[in-house]
Structure formats: C-alpha cells, structure tokens
C-alpha cells in the first residue's frame, strides 16, 4: 500500500524530529510539528486499516435474488480450498454471516461467492456493485473437503448450494475422480452454474420441479436411479437446502454409500468461540465451524438443524422489514 508507506514514513520522521540527541522525547520540539500531539479518548477501533475487500466482478444469476461476486482477497485465495467458508460483514452495524467459498483463483488473488438473498445481510450484499467494498471478509475457515482419488463421486447441488458444490466437484475432478454432477431447482431459470459444471464434470444430470428443463422431479430420483445402475460410486456429496440434504442422505442410506453434506447452521464468530453452530452428528455435539462444515450425512440430526436455523426467525423478519422500509425512504 503506497499510502500506508507514506504514513509510516511520516511517523518515523516525526519520531526522529521529536527526539533529542540523548534519545529523549522533546516536547517543545514536538509541539512545532503539526499532527504529532494526539489526544486520547477517541474511540476508533478500525481507524487506518485498509480492511475492506473490493468487488471485482458481479454477475446476477437470478435477478434480485442470487448473484455471483468475485472478490479481491489474495490471502484467502492463496489458502482457500474446496469446502472452506468465509465470514462476511457488509456495514459497520452489520451482522457476521458465513458463506461457503464457490471458487478460488490463487493466481489472480480472487475468491468467488454466491448467495441467495434471504435476510438483511444478504440484501445489503446484493445492493453492492462492482468497485464497492465488502467491509469484512474473514477466512478461509472450516476444514476443507476430504478429497482422495477413489473412483466415481456424485456431487449433488440444490439452489445456491450448487455453487459451493461446484467448488468441491472441481476438487474431485482435479484429483482425477470421475465426477457426476446432479443439480436441481424449481424451474430452469433458477438453475445455477450449469456451464461452469459442464466444463469439468464427466456427466451432468439435471432436474426441475416443473419439468421446464431436464428430468421433471427431484434430484434424489436421479440419484437413486444412478446408484442402482452404477456400483463404482464411492461417495455422494450434497450441498443445498436442509430438506434436500436430508433427502439425499435417506436416498443413499440403503446403498451404504458414504455421504458427505456441507452444513450451514447459524454462526456468530465462525472461529470456534461461541458454539452457535453446534449440530448433532451420531449423537455427539459438533461445532460446524471448527469440526465441519462437512459431516457424514447419515449421522446428522437434520430435524434439529432445521429448528436451530429457525431460532431467530422473528428477529430476522423485524430486521428485513426495517431495512425495506428505510431502503425505500418511508
């Protein structure tokens, strides 16, 4: 940061100018230099830190609902792996929210995130444009996906979960696994990342609830069909809404295929401090932020997760109503 360097130099110059030959600070001399005397008592915890993260690219995937953002975050890009997530905060009064990383580009120092506008925080994110900054981006967090070369993996994605699944699927493809993608949405216009997935998966199966594209029905129907015919599948990965992940786990259970789900519980810090994200896995309490966010889908207590996700439903409504009122100037 050239600007930062300037400040440092100025501080150093001041220090030297204010210091007499015996190394003591000279108050009279210091008084002659503007800006050297600083009064205490001004709360400014963030002053001076160029923390915000710039949005380099924004693509609307479902107008007003879902967008893809490419962020300038070299540190996170360098270390981020499939399965990792970041914590974001949009404004100084904003709430921290977790989002799974949908892609990383270490060379260009960027990460990609995809979100569904669900409450105030994601609405604030959607209101940002290219060139704007996301105030806080922290990561990469969580354990990355466990990826080993073992044969065929089926990656199932639903809703915005398709974007996060895409990152995991890419990791499997790079490892040399045969990747079958299965994606679903209510209708064709709500389907995300079809082209991105097609660029590297071996096969892509598509379903829509209304039959406007691909198979008419649920992703689990395509999945069951595939598992019945294809015995080389060693793992199924599912990312999406809780009911979808629960349904995928029930579909694979009779086949005895390892099933990994990426969970999205409420988080506050995202660094193992608060336990808001605790989930029951195999009867044991786990923290999704430091033990996950991926777990064995056959062991996860999905009904509990669903109810814990709804814990703040009333406050979320107050928050978004308040935002919409003020955002429209009423």
């Amino acid at each position, binding site marked *: 940061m050239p600007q930062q360097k300037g400040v440092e130099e100025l501080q150093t110059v001041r*220090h030297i100018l204010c210091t007499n030959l015996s190394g*003591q600070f000279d108050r009279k001399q210091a008084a002659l230099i503007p800006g050297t005397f600083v009064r205490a008592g001004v709360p400014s915890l963030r002053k001076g830190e160029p923390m915000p993260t710039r949005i380099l690219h924004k693509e609307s995937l479902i107008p007003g609902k879902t967008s893809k953002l490419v962020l300038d975050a070299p540190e996170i890009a360098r270390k981020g792996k499939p399965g990792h997530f970041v914590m974001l905060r949009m404004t100084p*009064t904003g709430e921290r929210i977790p989002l799974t990383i949908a892609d990383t580009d270490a060379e260009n120092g960027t990460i990609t995130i995809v979100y569904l506008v669900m409450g105030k925080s994601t609405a604030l994110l959607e209101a940002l444009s290219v060139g704007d900054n996301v105030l806080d981006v922290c990561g990469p*967090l969580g354990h990355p996906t466990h990826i080993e070369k073992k044969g065929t993996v089926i990656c199932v994605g639903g809703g915005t979960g398709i974007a996060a699944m895409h990152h995991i699927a890419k990791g499997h493809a790079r490892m040399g696994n045969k990747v079958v993608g299965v994606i679903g949405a209510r209708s064709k216009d709500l389907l995300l990342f079809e082209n991105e997935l097609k660029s590297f998966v071996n096969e892509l199966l598509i379903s829509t609830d209304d039959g406007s594209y691909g198979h008419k029905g649920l992703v689990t129907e395509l999945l069951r069909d595939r598992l019945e015919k294809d015995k080389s599948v060693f793992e199924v990965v599912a990312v999406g809404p809780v009911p979808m992940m629960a349904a995928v786990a029930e579909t694979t259970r009779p086949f005895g295929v390892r099933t990994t789900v990426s969970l999205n519980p409420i988080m506050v*810090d995202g660094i193992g401090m608060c336990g808001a994200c605790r*989930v029951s896995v195999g009867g044991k309490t786990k923290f999704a932020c430091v033990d996950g966010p991926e777990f064995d889908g056959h062991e996860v207590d999905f009904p509990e997760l669903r*109810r814990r996700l709804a814990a703040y439903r009333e406050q979320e409504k107050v928050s978004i109503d308040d935002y919409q009122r003020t955002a429209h100037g009423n």
Partner: protein
Amino acid sequence: METKTPKKPVAPRVDMPCQPAEVRRANFDEVALGYTREMAIEEAQRCLQCKKPLCVSGCPVEVPIRDFIREAAHGNMDAAYRIIKSTNSLPAVCGRVCPQEHQCEGKCVLRAKGQPVAIGRLERFVADTYIATTACEQVTGTDACALPRGDLKVACIGSGPSSLTCAGVCAAAGIKVDVYEALHEAGGVLIYGIPAFRLPKNVVATEIDGLRLAGVDFHLNSVGGRTVEVEELLETHHAVFIGVGAGLPMFLGVPGENLVGVFSANEYLTRVNLGRAYDFPNQDTPAFPGKNVTVFGAGNVAMDAARTALRMGAESVHIVYRRTRAEMPARLEELEHAEEEGVQFAMLSAPLRFNGDNEMRLTSVTLQKMELGEPDASGRRRPVAIEGEVFDLPTDLAVVALGTRSNPILLDATPKLKQNKWGYIEVNEETGETSIPNVFAGGDIVTGAATVILAMGAGRKAGQEIVKRLLG
C-alpha cells in the same frame, strides 16, 4: 513476615458512586461511576505506605502500587499514572476488571481491619484522569519516546489482553509490531466478552489507539492458523507471540442442550457486546429474547451474562449453582452488583436436563437439589445430590457459563507447537517461549480460562524477553 501495624484508627474506605440499581438494570452504561478527585485523594491517604508493600506481590504485573498511591495522595495524578504505566499497559482496563480482592487488595495490611485500600478504584481514577498528549506517553507513560527500529518486527496473534500487553512492551522499545486479529474489531475478550456496563468500549479503544500511534499495526479479519500461519510469520518477523485466548465453550453435557434457547455465554455475550444486540434492529445482530433466564456457572462470565439478560429485558434471571454463595468464584463486586440489580440465585442446584416443546424450543430445566458434603481435592466442600429432591424451573433462555477448552484452529495448523496434557500450549515458565524458538505464548491459550490481568502478566513477560533478545 514483618508488617507495619496501624497505630491510629484508619478512616473507612471511600465508597465508589454507582448508577442506582433500578436505573442501571435498564441500560448498558457503566455501572460504577468512578471516584471524584477528592474521593481519590481521601482514599489514597488511607494507605499506610508500608516499607514492604505486600500489595505489589499480589499483582501479576507488579505495579508499584505503594508508589503510585503516594503520588495520588498528594494529588499528582500524572506522576501516579507514569508509575502504573511502567509495568501495566492497560491500567484503565485493570482498574475495572481485576479481581483485586484476591490480588493486591487481598494482601493489603488494612484488610485485617476489614477494609483494604481501594487500589483498583484508585488505579481506575488515575488512568481515567490522565490524558496522554503523545503516543509515546500513552504507551510508555513517559515523555521518552523510543527511537523506532524499522529493522525489528514482532507479530502478535490475537488482540486480547496478553497480545496487547506484549505489543505495548515491544512498541515501547521501538520495535515494530503487527497484531493479527480474527474478528472485525480489536480487543479480544475486552470487546466481545466483557460488557460495556463493566468496561466501556471507548476505554479499550483509547488503549488500542495509543498502541497504534506508537507503531503497532492491527490487521483485522486475520485468523491465526488460517489467514496467517505461525511459520510464515516467523519468516517475516523476528518473534511471534501467540495470544489467541481459549475458545471452545464447554457445555453441561446434559440432555436437551441443543434446544433452541440454550446458549454458551460466549455466544450470548458476543452477540450483545461485539454485535451490539442491545441496539437491535439499529444493529443487525439479534440476541435471543428470554423472559425467564437461567445462567449456569458462578464466575465473572456468569455474572456478566445474568446482568446482560436483565438489561435485555428479562423478567427474571436465575443463576444456578451447585454450591453456595461462599464458593462462587466471581469477583465480589460483580456478585454484589448482580444481587442489587435483582439477579436471583438458585444455590445448591445442579441441572439434570433441559426440556423443550415440540418445536424444540426450551421451556424448562430440571434441577437436582444438592447439599455440601466432605471437602474435595480442591479443599472446597463437594456438592452431593439429595436423593429425590428434583424440581423444574421454567426458563426460555439458558446461558451456560462453565468456561472454555482450547481452540483447535491455530494448534491444528501448527503441529510443531508442543501442547500440555490439557491441550493448551506448553511454555517455558521463565520466558513464555514455546517449543518453537522465538515463538512465545501467553494468556488463556496457555493457562486455560483465567483473568485479564494474568494474561497481561504473561504478555508482559514474553514482551520483555523478546525485547531483551532483540535489543540485548
């Protein structure tokens, strides 16, 4: 040990003015209002100026207490401040949150008469009164400004009391410091943990501003072990200090603990303090609304959670504890403040299970009545269940304040770091150095959950060792 005995009767301790309990239980403003100058001088004059000041030996950072009180007694608050600052980087914080009754004031000779000198209140007054005019003064307490050494760099991971102290010691010696903080605000537990009514946030901000102006750079959103790693920092810095705090909250291990409405104290307090949930919806982070709140545990964090719940509008708040008031580990002042504000205590009660409705929302907790039996290894009388005495306490918000275990993020990413049998970082007692040369650690990640001042003591020790090594 020989000590001076008071010959003439000593005046009673000067009380500190507080917001009235019925007023303050509805706001987040600071409870204790602090001494006036006259009160401070009167209280300072109670000090006997012992030849061998025992109070100093009770202080983890060895503040020259007798000397600063002597200056305060003469009204020389600036001189008093410089004396405190010679060993304590955060006096305004310590004056507010230290358990003085177990430390300096616990050793005060006047305690035998029941009323030790109010050292904490004096420290607070002196720190609040003094307004530093330069960054050097803010960090070192003296006009002497160290020549900045651009060639020497130290990294501190975490920005809580231990890291800030280590950074302050290094900066005072002219060493450049980079502090890496995982959250979006610096201060660690001083920001996310301790509520504003006990430690106003601008007190912390002032201390941090001073450090910043003295050449400490704060890098927010930087998670030690993820965004930045110890090994990498060692390539760019001459030494690394790890002060990441404890972390993973402990739960009770009883059925129903994942019901909606059961929280760790860390979560509840972080939402309210860091997230400013008391100002929802102006601030976006909500806190779970509870009418009948139960808090489990009896330390300072439990008191903070209980008093926070009152201010968030709870109709009743119970602290549930399996022993009695006498065994409570909380700072006495916090306990008294909690009682005054209307926190109720369910003593000699241990939770058996949490009960919920069909939407998995918490409705009550089942408690087992206890009695005190024979003393255990810690010397405290062991609570024993009274058979058959089980009852339900209705509650819709339960806060578990039982302490924390070590946070695995940095430890997992740094396998070379030797851990002790409890999973905390093992350090050399004398220097604070870990099993990796030039990597130091202190605070809760070494000792497990402890106090602000103990963490500061560890940060100071490591900082002094770093300065010694780098500057000779």
